């Protein structure tokens, strides 16, 4: 099985030592996606909608670089800091995923690895034949 790392130039450089995604055969494991712009700067301080836009844009860009798309996501994990921001983030998620309803996990956590980040997602996608 072919294993390849994916680090597109459409997304900021990884903030630690990791790859944005690893493609193992037809399965794509996407790393944590954060509300960071192409230069790695935090976007939308205090604004869950703006942060979610950036997070899902980054996820989309990573998947597309791996020859996949949001419609191939089979598992999505979303972490938030504040439960009251859930509706805002879900609204953005729906906008990006459209009718594709990926199995999802949502958790409220204590903190994220980037100060000021309110939302983080990671995903597993399967493209083509398994």
């Amino acid at each position: 099985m072919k294993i390849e790392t994916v680090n597109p130039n459409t997304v900021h450089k990884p903030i630690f030592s990791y790859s944005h995604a690893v493609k193992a055969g037809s399965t794509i494991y996407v790393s944590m996606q954060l509300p960071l712009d192409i230069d790695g700067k935090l976007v939308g301080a205090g604004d869950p909608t703006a942060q979610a836009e950036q997070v899902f844009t980054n996820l989309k860009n990573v998947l597309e670089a791996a020859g996949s798309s949001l419609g191939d996501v089979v598992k999505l994990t979303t972490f938030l800091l504040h439960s009251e921001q859930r509706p805002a983030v879900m609204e953005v998620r729906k906008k990006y995923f459209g009718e594709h309803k990926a199995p999802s996990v949502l958790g409220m956590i204590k903190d994220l690895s980037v100060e000021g980040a309110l939302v983080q997602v990671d995903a597993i996608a399967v493209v083509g034949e398994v």
Partner: protein
Amino acid sequence: MMARKILEPEGVTKPISYYSDGMLVGPVLYSAGQAALGSDGVVVGKGNAFEQAKLVFYFLSQVLKEGGMDFSDVVRLNIYAMSRDDIPAILKVKDENFKNHQPSMSVVVIEGAAKKDFLLEAEFTAYKKPAD
């Protein structure tokens, strides 16, 4: 059906509840979360994330070894820390173990793990390289 094998390597503290350290399904290895618990049931490196991480990544290496793999086969790594301040120390140990291999990775900070003195928990998915 693909062959399954339960992995409970020597040198890894026995699971503290009803789970296995790892399961090999065909070429894919799913690990349990590992934390810094000594075989005597005492948390190792209390208050010291760097010391705890060394034991955690040792345990993960033993699970990989039992499955005929090493860190270069890991495709996905998840790290749960209890404080953002501990992330650099944990990742230093991760980098020492993974060397130049860069898997996909997610890091989050949670309120607590199975025991109150655990400062991190880590788990992975790995794929065995095909035999030559």
